[in-house]
Every structure is written in C-alpha cells, then in structure tokens.
C-alpha cells in the first residue's frame, strides 16, 4: 500500500470529482425517472455504466504496457490541462463572470424537453428517455473514469481511487433517493474549485516526474503545489471580479 501522503490526495480527488459529476448525471436521470418512471431511467443508467466498464476494461491492460515515465508524462499533461480547465472555470464562476451550475434549472430544462417530445411521439418516448439517461451517465462518467485512471495509474492507486469514486456514487444515490429531487444544495463550484486545485497539483507533479524532475519532499510536494494552485485560483478570481467591475 502506498504511503498515506500519496493515497489521500488521490482518493479525495477521485471522491470529490466523482461527487460533482454524479450529481450532474443524477439530475438528468431523475428528470427521466420523474417523467417516464424508473424503468427507462434504470436501464439507461445501467447501459451507461456498462459502456464505462468496457472502457475501463479495455484501457486497463493498455496502461500496463506503457513505461511508467511515459505514462506519468502523458497523464500529467492531460491532468494539467483538465485540472487547470476546471480551476479556471470555477474561478470565473466564483467571480460571477459565468453563471453557477444550477441543478434545478437543468432538471426543469430536461423535463421540459422530454415533455415537449411526449406530445407527438408517445410510443418511442421510453426509448428516448432511456437514451437520455444513458447519455448523461456516459458523458459525466467519462470524466470520472479519466480522473480515477489519472490519479491512480501512476502509483498503483487505481483500486483506492476507484473506491473513492464508488463511495461518491453511493453517497449521491442515497441522498438523491432520500430527497427525491435534484441535489441543488451541493456546493458544486466549491467542490470543482477544490478538485481543480488537486488535479492541477497532480498534473504538475506527474509531468515533472515524467520529464525526470525529482521533486524535493517527494509526495509531500503535492501539498505545496495544491496550496499554490489554491492561492492562484483565488487571486485570479479576485482579479477577475475587479476587472468585471471596472469594465462594467
């Protein structure tokens, strides 16, 4: 088992990133279930999870064949691009430049779209509803799969990272079934900000290691990187807020 200083950031990144994505997928699955019942929603969800499982099963053996430094460099670059993209968007949302993700609005829009379709195509609506659920699970799940593989593959942490993601799924499903409404109270942007910070830190760490840079303090350097990215995100957000006020 790798040291806790390595495992904790990987597990928590997988958990919180999955939490954000699963909440988004759950909103759409719930809209499908509310309008057409749980059967198409459950079938679509199962189909989406099945495709994701196939992707993981296909990717797993391929990753094992790649030399570790190339794997670290490749995953590090993708993590840096992905993490900084999330962090940038979260900073802009925190500054009020782009609107926050609104689960209630997404639920209403999805429900309206399915209701509109119901008028003329009642026969095929179950099929459409199932495909809608499948697509939501597949598209949001892709990001979860990438994050689990990215934070887990470099250090043999695939299983702990996967368990972190599964724990997030279980938590969202339990909360969703109990609440039976979109989970709009989840502080999605704060979570995205935090996950963006962690993924960017992992990105710099893996990219550096892939290029042959031995970071001082080894895994503990991740904590320093995360702190610096958190600071940069907050500074960027503050500057953006000031800029938007100046130009308003």
């Amino acid at each position, binding site marked *: 088992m790798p040291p806790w200083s390595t495992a904790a950031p990987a597990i928590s990144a997988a958990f919180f990133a999955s939490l954000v994505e699963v909440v988004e997928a759950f909103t759409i699955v719930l809209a499908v279930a509310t309008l057409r019942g749980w059967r198409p929603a459950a079938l679509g969800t199962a189909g989406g999870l099945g495709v994701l499982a196939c992707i993981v099963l296909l990717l797993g053996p391929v990753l094992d064949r790649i030399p570790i430094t190339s794997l670290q460099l490749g995953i590090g*670059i*993708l993590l*840096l*691009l*992905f993490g*900084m*993209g999330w*962090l*940038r*968007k979260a*900073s*802009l949302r925190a*500054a009020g*430049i782009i609107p926050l993700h609104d689960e209630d609005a997404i639920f209403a829009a999805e429900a309206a779209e399915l209701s509109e379709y119901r008028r003329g195509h009642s026969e095929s609506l179950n099929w459409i509803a199932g*495909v809608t659920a499948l*697509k939501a699970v*597949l*598209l949001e799940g*892709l*990001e979860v799969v*990438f994050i689990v593989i990215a934070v887990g593959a470099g250090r043999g942490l695939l299983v702990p990272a996967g368990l972190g993601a599964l724990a997030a799924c279980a938590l969202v499903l339990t909360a969703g079934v109990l609440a039976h409404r979109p989970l709009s109270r989840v502080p999605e942007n704060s979570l995205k900000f935090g996950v963006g910070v962690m993924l*960017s830190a992992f*990105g*710099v760490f893996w*990219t*550096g290691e892939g*290029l*042959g*840079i*031995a*970071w*001082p303090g080894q895994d503990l350097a991740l904590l320093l*990187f995360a702190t*610096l*990215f958190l*600071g*940069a*995100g907050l*500074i*960027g*957000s503050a*500057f*953006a*807020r000031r*800029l*938007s006020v100046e*130009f308003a």
Partner: protein
Amino acid sequence: MTMLKELAAELIGMFFAEKWLTVAVLGLIAVTGSLVDFTGVDRLVAGAFLLLGSLLLLVASVCHAARPRTH
C-alpha cells in the same frame, strides 16, 4: 452516430475547452522539457519554471476571460 459525436466532443472538451490556455500550457511543458533535455539547467529549476509558469498561466487565463470582448 450522434452519440459517438457527442462522446468525441466531450472527450475533446475535457482537455481542450479553452484554446488559449491549452496552447500556452503545452508550450510551457515543451519549454520545460527542452530545458531538461537540451540545456544544462538544474532539473529543479526546470520544475520551478513549470510550476510557476502554470500558476501564472492560470491567473492570466482567468483575467483574460474576465475582460470584455472588443469584437
């Protein structure tokens, strides 16, 4: 077919959503790699360059997006 297209768009969007930031980060990594491989610069200095460069690019990208478009 439509779903495959959406899947491909999602995958591309995951990493290349913001063109300017993507190009800048890839450029930063290329320069860091060149520093490590082709110059006598200490690897830790190259690492610091990568880290600080990423932080600066993040702040610059957020500020860039906050400025009003002139066109």
